[in-house]
């Protein structure tokens, strides 16, 4: 099946929204106005994402900074591959060994599966 032209694809959601609004305004769908009042937070959220990208994303990432590397080994049967940062810098006894030894132990490679 051939993909629809971009303009058609872009117009799909606004057209569906407009059709619902027309139906609501004409009273063809009783209860639709009430439904829209309930669904307005969802529509606002989608609108905010459409207009401003992922609003607040930078602030969230800034707050997350420095914490994201600390992860546990998952044990689920998830088909999505799980990223697991492993040891990246020597710690504890290994760090002392690095500092004191004449010939330090081999460094652990940073591996992400």
């Amino acid at each position, binding site marked *: 099946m051939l*993909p*629809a032209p*971009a303009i058609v*694809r*872009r117009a*799909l*959601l606004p*057209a*569906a*929204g407009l*059709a*619902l609004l027309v*139906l609501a305004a004409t009273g*063809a*769908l*009783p*209860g*639709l106005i*009430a*439904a829209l*009042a*309930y*669904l*307005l*937070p*969802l529509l606002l*959220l*989608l609108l905010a*994402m*459409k207009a401003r*990208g*992922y609003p*607040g*994303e930078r602030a*969230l*990432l800034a*707050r*997350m*900074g420095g*914490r*994201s590397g*600390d*992860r*546990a*080994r*998952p*044990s*689920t*049967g*998830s*088909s*999505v*591959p*799980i*990223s697991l940062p492993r040891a990246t810098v020597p710690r504890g006894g290994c760090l002392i060994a690095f500092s004191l030894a004449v010939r330090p132990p081999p460094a652990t490679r940073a591996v*992400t599966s």
Partner: protein
Amino acid sequence: MSSYDRVPACMPAFHPAVLRVAAGTATLLGASALAPSAASAHGISGQASLPVPAWLFAWAAAIVLVISFVVLSTMWSRPRLQAVHERRLCGWPAALSVPAGTLGLALFALVVYAGYEGVPFYTSNLDPTFIFVIFWVGVPVASALFGDWFAAFSPWRAFARALRWLAQRANVTLRAPLRYPDWLGRWPVVAGLVCFGWLELVYHDHDNPVLLASLSLAYFALMMLGMALFGIDEWSERGDAFGGYFSLFARLSSVDVHDRALWLRRPLSGVASLAEQPGAVALVLTIIGITTFDGASNGVVWNTLQPHVQSFFSGDLGLGGTPSDELADSLGLLLAIAVVVGFYRVGVLGMRSISPRFDTARLSRSFAHTLVPIAFAYVLAHYFSLLVWQGQAIGYLASNPLGDGTNYFGTAGWHVNYAFLGSTAIWYVQVVALVSGHVGGLTLAHDRALAAYRSPQEAVRSQYWMLVVMVGFTSLGLWLLSAVNT
């Protein structure tokens, strides 16, 4: 280069497929807004008196979800639910399964006997209340609280195990002739739940005790056949519609029984370990869809549209009143499931637009478990009034299961006390259940995203889409409930 690739990096990519599905879902919602009818109200309710318009609760719920999303993004920085964290509480004697199974079998026999021998009135006969309230609503709620205890009481499983024990005593080795096919996954459970949902919500004679007894026996026979072909444990876990439904919600419980011991586990971690089998996504979406239709069938939208659909079948196709009504409601049931599928699909396609590493099928499977708390929230919120009001009827029905005037336990004179909990209190319970369920879903999605995506940015962006899904389901749930309660 796809059209998505040309979208600036800071913009969420409204992938063409997202738009298509969103438009489709909006149209389905609109269509459903046009159309419930003669379907009886299963979520019993009165008129709640609220201090503010009911739609403001949807706004408040959306704000709670956005705050939860921000708190999770900033405070929950590593996966905590992907590994199984459990602590052994105490031993669990295997011998307990014998009295539990016997009790389950005895109750099943009583249901069948009451169906055939009792009075044919749904308020006086044990069967309708026991099956549609205690079994269909009470057991899932109890499973979410206390774990998968139904497995021990399952009458068909107990009967099959008893047969196997007898065969072993007679030195006969019973072996399942077939291996359960992997492709079948959870589809038998989905099919069973759709059939039961249709019986409850669409079929006109659904509260006929004789019919219920016959269907119970037929289901028993089907389970015996499945266990004979594929093995008792294999079929019980994957093919038993009700066992699969209850065990799904049991994953929400903080207690679990396995290896002959009682275990305490981290809340929600049982859901995160849900296996990605074929049909698992459909199972969760179907549960939400069935409950959605039950709610919608009491609302003005479906009640406006349904007569038009019915008249198409009765007028244009010449069907009788009852078949055309059932056909219209069958379409409504499928439409409700389609709306739910559409909501989830929008979220998955949105996540798909973030990283090309995962295709939609994998994302759909991997995040399906996040819908389990939502499915439970829908069931609890929608049927809570039924459980607390109609559930009381089991008090007098236990003494008089056939409706013939017996009084075994001296409780036959009891009545349903509707003042036990008011409509306003029920509305608040429903709101709290829905919001809690969706916060739980958001937590599970956030945890899975942290484990699945390589960069925090991808993980956070994926959760914007899950937030859309959660806000959508919460708003939809509250709208459906408000149609009955307010």
